[in-house]
């Protein structure tokens, strides 16, 4: 047991190292030394408390998507559609905020979240049904729907949720103060001997997500559901011989994955961005969530840890982009490398006699 834990840690560190070192090597194209690039990647996220709080902001979004991916992964299914489901959630949140009128803001906010979750579930439904009924590869269908979701978001930003003062830019209105999630963390700023408290972008969304993670842990890792999904992951035929309703489980976990990605989009709009624009379309949280779940081996606690590391890498990567003028593409290099290394190390571990 102890030996396998050490092995797991060694694998984990290897994968992270591949990601960090790989990006640093690629960064040399921008005429920066590997060591300097590594330094920016590793240290700048902690250089000031605002950057550090930003790690938790990204963590919230990545972990919410990753929770869904990992639950579907327990049944051997890959929901790569988080990217698009997140967008649908974000758009629906703003749509409801604009057109819904209820007696109290709390009620509106609840409905905004529920609406976002519901529509993201609808978005995840075609791949889920195609997989359950006809065995269509869910990775392909969820990925194709991501592209549809990007176009849908552009359509919404140009139509229904277009901001009143957008002047031709594809940008929505800002959420009114009453419909925002409260800020969790304020940081002291000292200027001219006066201490003032400044909001970070960290909202109560992280609390919601951590509570949700505990509930999902109890539901999916402390009940027979865990075994059922495990059997489905191994072989659908064996599962149905064992009396497990495979189609229902497959559709269920895929819809849940969609719902969580939609929730991530809703919380990101209500707690962090307060608006949405066309620049946010390639947010990347969907694919980062897939990496987090793969790295955390579909366990809820393991995924939390890898989501945290990935957020750290993303913030470091953004500092590197600022320092070198690199584009966001450089983050995908790291994510791709880490994904591939995860697959290779997993295979090597299994092969070991």
């Amino acid at each position, binding site marked *: 047991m102890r030996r396998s834990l050490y092995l797991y840690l060694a694998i984990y560190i290897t994968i992270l190292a591949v990601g960090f070192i790989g990006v640093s090597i690629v960064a040399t194209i921008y005429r920066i030394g590997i060591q300097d690039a590594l330094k920016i990647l590793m240290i700048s996220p902690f250089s000031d408390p605002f950057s550090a709080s930003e790690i938790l902001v990204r963590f919230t979004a990545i972990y919410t998507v990753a929770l869904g991916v990992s639950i579907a992964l327990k049944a051997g299914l890959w929901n790569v559609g988080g990217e698009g489901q997140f967008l649908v959630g974000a758009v629906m949140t703003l749509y409801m905020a604009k057109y819904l009128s209820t007696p109290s803001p709390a009620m509106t906010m609840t409905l905004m979240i529920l609406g976002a979750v519901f529509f993201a579930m609808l978005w995840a439904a075609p791949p889920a049904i195609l997989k359950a009924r006809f065995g269509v590869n869910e990775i392909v269908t969820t990925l194709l729907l991501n592209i549809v979701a990007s176009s849908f978001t552009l359509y919404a930003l140009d139509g229904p949720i277009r901001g009143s003062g957008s002047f031709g830019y594809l940008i929505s209105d800002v959420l009114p103060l009453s419909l925002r999630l409260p800020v969790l963390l304020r940081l002291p700023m000292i200027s001219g001997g006066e201490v003032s408290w400044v909001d970070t972008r960290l909202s109560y969304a992280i609390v919601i997500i951590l509570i949700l993670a505990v509930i999902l842990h109890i539901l999916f890792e402390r009940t027979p559901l865990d075994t059922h999904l495990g059997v489905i992951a191994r072989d659908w035929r064996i599962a149905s011989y064992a009396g497990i309703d495979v189609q229902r489980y497959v559709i269920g976990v895929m819809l849940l994955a969609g719902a969580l990605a939609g929730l991530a989009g809703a919380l990101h709009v209500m707690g962090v961005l307060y608006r949405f624009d066309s620049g946010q379309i390639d947010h990347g949280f969907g694919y980062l969530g897939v990496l987090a779940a793969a790295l955390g081996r579909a366990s809820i606690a393991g995924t939390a840890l890898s989501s945290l590391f990935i957020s750290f890498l993303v913030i470091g990567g953004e500092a590197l982009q600022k320092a070198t003028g690199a584009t966001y593409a450089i*983050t995908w290099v790291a994510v791709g490398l880490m994904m591939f290394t995860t697959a290779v190390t997993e295979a090597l571990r299994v092969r070991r006699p």
Partner: protein
Amino acid sequence: MTQLPPELLKALEMLVNPTILIVAFAVSLRLLPILLFTSLGELITEKSGVVNLGVEGIMLFGAFTAYIVTIATGDPFAGLGSAIAMGTLVTAVFAYTAVILGINQAVAGLGIWLLGLGLTGVLYTTVAPIGATVSTIKSPLDVDTLISYVGSREAAELLVSLTNPLVVVSIAIVPATHIFLIKTRWGLVVSSVGEDPLSSDALGINVARVRFLSTLYGGILASISGAYLSISYLGDFRYGVTAGRGFMALAMVYAGNWDPVRTFLSAALLSFIDALQLGIASSSIELARRYYFFNMIPYIAVILLVLILGRKARPPSGLMKHFRKG
């Protein structure tokens, strides 16, 4: 009855216009190789029991390599050659890890895709000269001079599409793949390895080698598809230029039930839909402003196509199952 928006009415009017349909057909012939090369290559890969989700990334590697080498040498065929070399290299890594090590093909494939997206994105903004024009692989005929011979623009467009060498090659691969799978011993070997690796191994077939070569072939065709996209169809490269065409190609194999002719028909239908939406979206300024609305259509069409044709699909039994000898 509710009033349809005028833009939509105009779009519907265009759908019954024969001239536009012929032009759309000509354009769809030019779009076809992007899907066809990749899907026919992936078909052989999957027939042998491997799913290569990295084709999207391999297409990007191919597209970028072809683009940059063509700019450097001025010869598009040198670009095509180096794209194939690049595709072979990347696919060899995937094929080795998938077939020999038995890694999770889904995770590794997604990794290759994101790596391709990231690396070509970074290199494009650093290495590629800004605003460079690239010489392309194109038809020896020219639309403007051809009009004086054949009389109409539509016929000229059609002839130009049909004489693009890569369009011809991609269509020629359809019967070739069909004959390979049905009539040759090697085709039978590929299919049997994908259906039942254990029995194939008992018959003395080297399962790993067959799968490795089939995966390599699929990757090479994907890189040709990428090269076609950058140095023949577009004459340009952009970040993420393949826009999910690789994943579409995978869906085509499914909709075609692992049959080359049916896969070709699915790809042809989809290319036609794609050409129609491009034609409608670019026909007027008001419609062009809503390009994202039309852009959704091909992707939704793929899902519908899979939904309709997927009912009867039966994948190779050994698909995505690792076989380890001994």
